[in-house]
């Protein structure tokens, strides 16, 4: 087994985990910022629903001209504004996911190019401070897939929202929260713990 190739692969893995660590914290904070946006979206849906249920003509507000339409317009504008902000967040998440994917696929490409020089025994051997190459590749792939899935699911949730289905919008915050994958996050955190010694070695 060529030690030069092994060294280079280790370096690439290190770089990849570094990217993962950096992007993970940004990802988490971006996602945390989506939460209040989602709850205001749900809140606006409740308000729109209430407006739909109330017959303004039978209330003390009857004398205000076109109140229903005007309020509906204002609320719709507010919904648009929130959705716009969420779309920005989704773009930010997409960029983070792209950065992670790019690094991970670079490592895999390097590995595949050099499979001739890397024997199985070398790839699966591990020490107290250094996990095996195969383990690390697997963790990276898992992390990549986790972010990929998260992004698709969350974007899908937002794209499925339509102005006529207020119940869908009202339940969006709850469904958004339910997309949180505790096990996926935990696996990524575990993997990062397992490579912490490896990251410190020169």
């Amino acid at each position, binding site marked *: 087994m060529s030690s030069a190739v092994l060294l280079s692969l280790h370096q690439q893995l290190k770089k990849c985990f570094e990217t993962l660590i950096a992007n993970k914290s940004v990802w988490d904070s971006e996602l945390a910022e989506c939460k209040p946006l989602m709850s205001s979206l749900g809140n606006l849906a409740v308000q729109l*629903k*209430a407006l739909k249920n109330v017959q303004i003509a039978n209330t*003390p507000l009857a004398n205000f001209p076109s*109140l229903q339409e005007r309020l509906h317009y*204002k609320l719709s504008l507010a919904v648009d504004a929130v959705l716009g902000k969420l779309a920005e967040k989704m773009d930010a998440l997409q960029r983070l996911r792209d950065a992670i994917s790019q690094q991970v696929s670079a490592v895999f490409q390097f590995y595949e190019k050099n499979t001739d020089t890397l024997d199985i025994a070398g790839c699966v051997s591990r020490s107290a401070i250094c996990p095996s190459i195969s383990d690390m590749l697997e963790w990276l792939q898992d992390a990549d897939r986790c972010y990929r899935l998260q992004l698709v699911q969350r974007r899908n949730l937002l794209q499925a929202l339509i102005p006529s289905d207020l119940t869908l919008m009202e339940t969006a915050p709850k469904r958004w929260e339910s997309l949180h994958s505790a096990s996926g996050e935990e696996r990524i955190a575990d993997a990062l713990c397992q490579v912490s010694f490896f990251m410190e070695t020169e």
Partner: protein
Amino acid sequence: MSESTTPGKKGNLTGSARKLKDDAADWHNLIQKWERLNDEGSTIATKIVNLGMSKKSDTEADVVMEGGSVKAGDISDNLKRSNQELEEECVKLQDVVDKMANILSKMEKMVQAERGICELEAFQCGEKRAAPLFHTWSTQQFVEVSSKLYESYKQELALKKTILQELAHTANADLSMVYLSSWLYQPYIEDSGKLLLESLLLETGHRPL
């Protein structure tokens, strides 16, 4: 006429131009103050609705727990306290509406003053002055912008007064919600109002061209 017609330079404006420029600044400040009051009022209104809801559920609980372990005295104490709290919040909201009414009366005075300026100008220079006071607007246009802004705030205040009267007495949750969103989103203050204000500020030189 000895009025300076160069906008943007503070201190050398006199007469109608001075008055119109000061009014423009006042519009800006009053509207900002209004927005702050609106947010303040919205928080209070939400509290009122929540108190009303919890009061309702308290009295319902009262029925359910009849003969239960909870003493009737506790409940009436609770009710008394929440009633007191409700009243306090209503007074606060009344205060906000009063302040808004005050702002509106200042707006009205400005509209009247600008009408006066227009009439004065007609009296002094015939139908129309030769050069505009600032960049391009005729004096009449200032009156039009001010009146439009004033009308929207007037309608909004009427809406808020109605909300103030009804808010604490509504048992219908949906209607309470409509009151709250009407208060917060101010349906009669249109986006065009923002544009009018900005163009007013631009015309009078408060905003750089």
